[in-house]
C-alpha cells in the first residue's frame, strides 16, 4: 500500500529535494528518534474513541504533540536558529591567493560542489542497504543492518538496593583486574574463604575463545542507524513530565493544550498565555 501524505513546501521543516542524483529509500525503516513516542499512538486510526486509547496506555500523545516533540528535537540538533542556506557565510579569500590554484581532480571538484547534507547521505546509505538485503548478497566491506546475536541473558532489573550484607568488600576489590592488561590469560580471581558458600561465591564467566574474539574484532562496522541507541526497555514508565513554567514535576496537565505545570500558581500563569 503506498503511503500518500502531504509534505510541507515552505517553512523550516520543508523537505528539500536531494540535490543531484539519489537513490530513494523504499524501506519500512522507522527512525526511532522520530517514531511515535507511544507505540499505541500509531494505531490511533483503528481505535475509534479517545477513551479507548486512554484505557490502553493512560497517556496517549496526540499527533500534534508528537509533531511538537519532533520539531523540538530537530531544533535542539540545529546549529543556529536559521537554516544553513539562510546563513550562507562566504568563505573569505586569503590575501595573496590570486595565483592560480593547482588543478583539482574531478573527484575533488565533485566533492566540493556536492550540496548534500548529512540527511541525504543517510538516505543513500539506507537505500543502499535495503538494495543489498534485497539482492541477498552481503559485501564484506559494508555492514548489513543485521545485529549480531545477543550473547547476554537479559538481566532482570536489579532490586532497588543491593544489600551489601556479609559480602567481603576487600574480596571484591581483589577481583578487580589489578594488573593491566586485565584479561591476559584468565579471569582468575584469588580464591576467597567465601567461595565455599554457594551464596557468596563469585562466579566469573570464562573468557571467550580466541576464535570468538577474532570474530568480534574483525566484524565490519554497523550502519549509522543500526548503532543508534534503542529506547530503554522500561521506556514508557520512565517518561517524566516537567512544569513548563519552572521545571519542577509537571503533575497538573492543561486540559486544552496538554502542557504540564507543577501547581495551581503556575497553572494560572500557563492559562494566561495558553496557545489553545
Amino acid at each position, binding site marked *: 500500500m503506498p503511503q500518500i501524505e502531504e509534505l510541507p513546501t515552505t517553512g523550516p521543516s520543508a523537505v528539500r529535494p536531494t540535490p543531484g542524483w539519489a537513490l530513494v529509500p523504499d524501506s519500512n525503516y522507522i527512525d526511532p*528518534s522520530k*517514531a511515535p513516542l507511544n507505540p499505541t499512538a500509531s494505531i490511533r486510526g483503528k481505535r475509534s474513541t479517545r477513551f479507548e486509547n486512554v484505557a490502553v496506555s493512560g497517556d496517549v500523545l496526540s499527533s500534534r504533540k508528537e509533531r511538537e516533540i519532533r520539531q523540538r*528535537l530537530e531544533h*535542539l*540538533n540545529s*546549529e*543556529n*536558529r536559521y537554516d*544553513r542556506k539562510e*546563513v550562507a*557565510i562566504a*568563505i573569505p579569500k*586569503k590575501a595573496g591567493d590570486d595565483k592560480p590554484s593547482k588543478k583539482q*581532480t574531478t*573527484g*575533488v571538484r565533485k*566533492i*566540493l560542489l*556536492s550540496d548534500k547534507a*548529512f540527511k541525504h547521505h*543517510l538516505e*543513500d*546509505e539506507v537505500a543502499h542497504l535495503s538494495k543489498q538485503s534485497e539482492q541477498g548478497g552481503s559485501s564484506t*566491506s559494508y555492514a548489513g543492518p543485521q545485529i549480531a546475536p545477543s*550473547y*547476554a541473558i537479559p*538481566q532482570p532489573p*536489579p532490586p532497588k538496593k543491593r544489600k551489601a550484607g556479609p*559480602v567481603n568488600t576487600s574480596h571484591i576489590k581483589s577481583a*578487580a*583486574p*589489578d594488573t*593491566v592488561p*586485565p*584479561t591476559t590469560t584468565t*579471569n582468575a580471581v584469588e580464591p576467597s574463604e567465601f567461595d565455599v558458600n554457594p551464596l557468596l561465591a*563469585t*562466579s566469573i*564467566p570464562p*573468557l*571467550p575463545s*580466541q576464535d*570468538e*574474539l*577474532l570474530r*568480534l*574484532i*574483525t566484524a565490519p*562496522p*554497523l550502519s*549509522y542507524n543500526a548503532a543508534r*541507541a534503542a*529506547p*530503554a526497555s522500561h*521506556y514508557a514508565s520512565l*517518561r517524566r513530565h516537567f512544569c513548563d513554567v519552572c*521545571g*519542577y514535576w509537571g503533575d497538573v496537565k492543561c486540559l486544552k493544550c496538554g502542557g504540564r505545570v507543577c*501547581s495551581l*500558581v503556575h497553572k494560572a500563569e500557563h492559562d494566561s498565555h495558553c496557545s489553545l
Partner: protein
Amino acid sequence: MARHGKRHHDYPSLAEKTLIIDNGAYNIKAGFSTENPDVKECQLIPNCIAKSREKKVYVGAQLSKCRDFGDMVFVRPLEKGFVVNWPEEKAIWESAFLDSTAVLKCDPHETNLILTEAPNCPQTLQVFCDQMVFEEFEFASYYRCVGPSLNAYNDIPSLFGDNSEQPPKLSQLPAECLLLIDSGYSHTTVTPLLHGRPIQNAVRRLDVGGKFLTNALKETLSTQYYNVQDDTIPVTEIKESACYVSDDFKRDLDRTWKLGARQRREIDYSIVIDWVLPDYENTMHGYSLPHDPKLPFKTRTLPMGESVLPMANERFQIPELLFNPSDIGLAEGGLSDIVMQSLEQLPKGLWPAMLGNIVLVGGTSKLKGLRERLEAEIRQNTPSDFPVRVALHPEAEKATWLGGARMANNEDLMKRLCVTRQEYLEHGHTLMHTWTNRQFQARANAVGTTMLEG
C-alpha cells in the same frame, strides 16, 4: 602470490613527521607527534566559520581574535560528527595547516596523517574524505580510524591508579580491554575496544551531545528569562561552568521548588546561583555570584548594568538529559542504558574486563558529577560479582589526540596501517574509490589479529 607475500614484509617507508588530527565537530585537536607526546603540543582549533554581528568572518583559529561573541552565527563543516561540507573544512584546514602564519604549518608531501572519524560513518563520506586527503591535500601517507580506538594507546592503568610507578611501555600498548565512552559535541558513543580494535557490533550511539545540551539550555533560559537563542558562546560558557549532573535528581529538584499549592516554600539557596552575562565591553566572560534572595527572582541587573540570570533547577536539569533523554521526548536510552546495550552484544566473559576499565573522554564528559553518576548507575545495573570502575581522562578533550600521538611513535605499527600516496595513486580509484577504505579495514584487522595471537 610471491609479490603478495613480499608486500607484507617490505612495508613502505614513511615520512619523518606525523600530523595527528582529531577532527571534532566543535574543535579540531591537532599537533605533530614527538618522542614524548604531551597535550601541550596539541592545538585546539575551532572547527567552524563564524560571522559576528559586525559581519566580520572568522575562519577556524582566527576566532580567538574575536572580542564579541554576541549574536554570532556559525557554519560548521561537520554534521552529526562527520565531515559533510568539504568547502568549509578545506578553508579551515588550509588556514590551520598550510597558511604561512599557521602554528601547525607543514608540507603535506612530507607529512604522515592520522585522522579520526566518528564511529559508523556512511561509506560515501569516508570515500570523500580519502579523496580529499590524497587528491587535494596530498599527504605522504594516511591512516583514518575511529576516534575512540586511539584511546587504547593512552596510559590507561594510571587513570585507575594501578601500578603507577611504571607506565606501560610502547610494546605493551594498546591496552587489551577498554570500554570507551566518548561524549562530544554531536553525540555520545560507547565503543568497547579489544587490543585497540573496536568491537563494531557493540558500538552504540546516543544522539545527545554538547550541542544538544547547549540548545536545551538556550531554550529553557529563553522561555523563563529572556531570549538568548543567538548567544551560543555565552550559553556554552554557562553550561560548562554552572551546570552539573545531580547525584540525586529527585532530591535536588525538591530542594529548588519554590511554589507549593498552599504555601510558599523556602528553597535551598546553596543550589541557586546568579550568573552574570558578559557585556563584551568590560567583561569577556560570564561569571557566577552566590544568589542574593533579597532581589526579585526574575531578570535583574547589577549596578554596572550587567544582566543577571538566576539559575536554580536548570543547573542540573539540562545535563540530566544525558541520563534520561526521554525527559525531552527523545526515544533513546540514557548513558548507562547504552553502556548496557553495548555490553549485551559481548560475550559474558569479557564483561569483567570491560566494566573494570570504563574510560570517559570528550568535552561533554567534563560536566561535574557525570563520572560519579555513571559509575553509580552502572553499578546498579550489573551483577555485583563484577567490579565497576569509571575513570575520566584528565585531558578529556585532548585524550584521543594524545592516544594518536602515542600510537604514531610505534613506527612498525604505523608502517603496517598507513596507506601511502604512492599506493593511492596506483590503486585508489579501483572498486569505486573504496579501495583505500577497504585497505584501512583489512590492515587494521591484520594488526588486530597479530595482537590477539601474540
